[in-house]
């Protein structure tokens, strides 16, 4: 066991910092990246892809950088410190690994390069109105007709489908079989006739999720990943990958340090005592910091295990639960820091108007409301606990 970074590690860190200094200008490092345009996002994604850094977790042969766990850790830390956009999780954390693990050569050639450099923007078509936690009960149907599938049904909560070029869908190909056994994993071009996207607006006014309706959508059979009716295996594999990235330790650390900065900024408090000197507030901050340490080292242990060939297992559920709880606590702390200025809804100000309160207050309440999603998506925290109870404790 050794926690120290080597000299090479520090050189590596410097290389990343130099890259960020050049490509991610100071003015973008505002802390708030809840809203972004599609193009801006793609530009950033491509920059990383050009550099070969966009998919740290991918094997080298498919475009990963071939880093050690320590390097991955340093990279994630530096990215979070610079408050960069996340790379598109649907591409890098989800469908990419499914394609290189279960896809055929043809599919790997066709889809992996554009997935890696974001020429395809993917979205995730798992959940349906009647199938959330009980994902296997999904009802969207794909019927084989010659060299095509005809798909009918509806997906919901589809994140950023409004920007997406393709959707990876779980569909039912055998309606007779037991729930998990008749499911297939299908890649569908969003431009295919019969697909409609309808926005869902969430608390706080964000448009990040959608309903996706599929009506007689004709999908070439070659877009099937792996074997027909074996999709559940691939779906579960993907969920494991989705969860392990979900802890967001580095992003939490950065968000917390932002709050500390604001709470210590004398210019905001004038003759009043600064918030950072308040005993109750300090205790909350320190508790979150300590919990973050525990999370971080749990994550590092899990990563080391993965590296030793254990693959992400039910441990990723632990990271998901704790990571999301901490994200939520930090978002509530932001509301506390904002004080009365948590109340105005001012995010729709035009660029010329200034908000009534300080900058850090503008997204505080909306951020707190929005973060409630983290314990719901990616398999709710109740479902994660069920998984741990079963898979780790054997209950």
């Amino acid at each position, binding site marked *: 066991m050794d926690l120290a970074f080597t000299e090479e590690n520090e050189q590596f860190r410097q290389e990343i910092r130099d890259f960020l200094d050049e490509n991610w200008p100071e003015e973008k490092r505002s802390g708030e990246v809840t809203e972004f345009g599609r193009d801006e996002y793609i530009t950033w994604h491509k920059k990383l892809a050009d550099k070969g850094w966009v998919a740290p977790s991918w094997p080298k042969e498919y475009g990963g950088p071939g880093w050690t766990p320590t390097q991955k850790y340093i990279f994630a830390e530096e990215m979070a410190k610079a408050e960069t956009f996340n790379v598109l999780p649907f591409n890098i954390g989800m469908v990419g690994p499914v394609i290189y693990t279960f896809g055929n050569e043809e599919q790997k050639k066709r889809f992996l390069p554009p997935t890696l450099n974001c020429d395809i923007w993917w979205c995730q078509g798992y*959940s349906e109105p*009647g*199938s*959330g*936690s*009980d994902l296997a*009960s999904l009802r969207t149907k794909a019927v084989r007709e010659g060299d095509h599938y005809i798909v009918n049904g509806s997906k*919901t*909560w589809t994140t950023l489908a409004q920007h997406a070029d393709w959707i990876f869908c779980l569909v039912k190909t055998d309606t007779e079989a037991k729930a998990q056994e008749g499911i297939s994993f299908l890649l569908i071009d969003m431009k295919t006739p019969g697909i409609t996207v309808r926005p*869902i*607006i*969430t*608390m*706080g*006014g964000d448009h990040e*999720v959608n309903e996706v309706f599929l009506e007689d959508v004709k999908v070439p059979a070659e877009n099937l990943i792996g074997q027909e009716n074996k999709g559940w295996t691939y779906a579960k594999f993907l969920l494991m990958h989705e969860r392990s990235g979900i802890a967001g330790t580095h992003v939490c650390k950065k968000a917390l340090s932002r709050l500390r900065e604001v709470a210590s900024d004398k210019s*905001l*408090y*004038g*003759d*009043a005592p600064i*918030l950072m000197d*308040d005993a*109750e*507030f300090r205790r909350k901050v320190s508790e979150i910091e300590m919990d973050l340490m525990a999370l971080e080292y749990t994550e590092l242990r899990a990563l080391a295990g993965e590296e030793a060939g254990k693959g992400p297992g039910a441990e990723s559920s632990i990271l998901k639960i704790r990571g999301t709880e901490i994200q*939520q606590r930090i978002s*509530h702390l932001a*509301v*506390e820091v904002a*004080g*009365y*200025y*948590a*109340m*105005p*809804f*001012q995010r729709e100000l035009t660029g010329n108007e200034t908000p*009534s*309160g*300080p900058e850090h207050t503008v997204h505080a*309440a*909306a951020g*707190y*409301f929005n973060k*409630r*999603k983290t*314990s*719901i*998506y990616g398999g*709710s*925290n*109740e479902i994660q*606990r069920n998984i741990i109870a079963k898979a780790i404790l054997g209950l």
Partner: protein
Amino acid sequence: MDFLFTEEQDMFRESISRYVREKYDFEARQKIISSEAGWSKEVWSDFAEMGLLSVPFAEEYDGLGGGAVDVMVIMEELGKGNVVEPFLPTVVLSGGVLAAVGGEHAKALIPQIATGELIMGFGFAEPRSRFDLNHVEASAKKDGEAYVLNGRKSVVLAASIADKLILVARTSGSTRDADGISLFLVDANAKGLTIEDYPTIDGHRAGDVVLEDVKAELLGEEGKALSVIEKVTDQGISAIASEAMGLCRTMVDLTTQYCRERKQFGTPIAKFQVLQHRMVDMLIHAEEMTSMAYLGALKLDEHEVERKKVLSAVKVQLGKSVKYCGEEAIQLHGGMGMTEEMAIGHYFMHGTMLEVLFGNTDHHRKRYESLM
């Protein structure tokens, strides 16, 4: 000891409750908050007719001579409907200040509040005051009979829809002195007064009030307003505690109802014991909120230290109850809880704002500790 309501109070509650159920359902509310004005004059005049706007005031002001318990009944029912009309800023806060200072202003203005003609807002917070009522940077200088105000008051509820405002400014002393704080009355369209208006995140209307040499009339005694402000904001806490009990009860109802209907794994999710326990804990939080709201209303007229202690305890309970009920309500609704189309999120959002209003949980825990 008893916790019974009088027959009149029961009837009064029933009439408000019926009104909210029939005329102020979720759709009606959505329509109101997305309208240009952001509130409904029609609803307001119905409130006047039903007596909501006159109940708390003494008979000498054309009021019905009710008390804190009557306000509690009103606020609980308004909470159940998540009503956005400015009852709190106009009747409880501005009416409360006017009744406390008395005199000509009270005689002239309270009757207008009672009939529903006059909307008012009360500006006590400032950009750097956080929740400290004694932190007043806005200044008032005497100029003949009148005063001239300068400064900024933060997040004044109903500012943008009010006809008149009551504002706190300093007539002497330094920023955080308890002495030297005074109350002023201004017209919302007075010269030099700008309102940066905005909706709040929970669908109410509010604004920052920017003062540049604004002429104002003094209310009450110069330099001695802090104790009035503290008393009135404690009345505000009592009122929103009652509202919070309405919010929490409704969140419990909506959530249990949703979990009975929503099926996953071939069974209503209400059957999962882990969710049952969470709903039980929501209920416990709602019950505790109720008890503390009662206590708060009954202790408003106690001597200052006892009143402050109890009302701080009430506010801490409010913070815990709305946070627990709100967060769990969303969680148990799953993705549906996140959407703007469902009522549940709006209760959560309003509850979160109540958690901030008049000082958050930490602030009141500290006020309580300082009086222990």
